[in-house]
């Protein structure tokens, strides 16, 4: 038995969809290293690399370092997923991980990294975070719409 596999809108009777590509990024962070940075540098460390919203969200948790580590992993994962060769200053304040009332995370870009993402044709960004006592990890998927990228 053979089965035809249709790719990217070639199925008969369906209009061809616009071409879409994706970028994927992942990162893993040792929670103990974030714990040590928080212990040694305190609020100055958090306020430098995390937004006020992230600090409020993570600080309200029972084990804040795990949540800060997960957000740092997510920021790095997003940067890896973006189709951007970033050589500027560390953009961690400009890649914010926000959570809706149900706790679902999403990404808000701002500043120069947002401008670079728009120029590169980035449409949507999805992110997923996870952590245990020792490690935090995140995966980001960036949808790049070719129409925007070429425009």
């Amino acid at each position, binding site marked *: 038995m053979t089965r035809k596999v249709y790719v990217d809108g070639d199925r008969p009777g369906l209009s061809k969809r616009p071409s879409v590509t994706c970028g994927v990024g992942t*990162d893993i*962070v*040792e929670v103990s*290293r*974030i714990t040590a*940075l928080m212990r*040694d*540098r305190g609020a100055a*460390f958090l306020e*430098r*690399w995390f937004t006020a919203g992230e600090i409020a969200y993570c600080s309200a948790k029972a084990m804040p370092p795990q949540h800060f580590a997960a957000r*740092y992993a997510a920021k*790095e994962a997003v940067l890896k997923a973006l189709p951007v060769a970033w*050589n*500027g*200053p*560390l953009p961690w*304040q400009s890649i914010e991980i926000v959570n809706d009332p149900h706790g679902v995370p999403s990404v808000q870009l701002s500043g120069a990294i947002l401008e670079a993402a728009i120029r590169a044709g980035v449409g949507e960004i999805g992110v997923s975070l996870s952590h245990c006592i020792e490690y935090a990890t995140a995966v980001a998927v960036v949808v790049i719409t070719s129409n925007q990228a070429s425009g």
Partner: protein
Amino acid sequence: MDTQIRTELTEFIVMNYLFGDVSRVPLDNDSLIDEGYIDSTGILELIEFIQSHFGVEVSDSETVPENLGSVASLTKFVTSKLPVGEPSC
């Protein structure tokens, strides 16, 4: 002073990221990230180390590869931030 700063930066990298293995000491111009000496969390640790150990402020705009990418660039950056004639910690 350059030599002392380079030595202290190298010691930090060896002790924290190379398990004390001095046979793996990065060359001055080796890329610390691209060649796998330190990871993304290590960059934050390195910045915090520079600030606490050498007493210099690293502004957001200075967190770029030209300043942090190698032992040579780190040494040059820290040296440029220290007052002339002032020894490091």
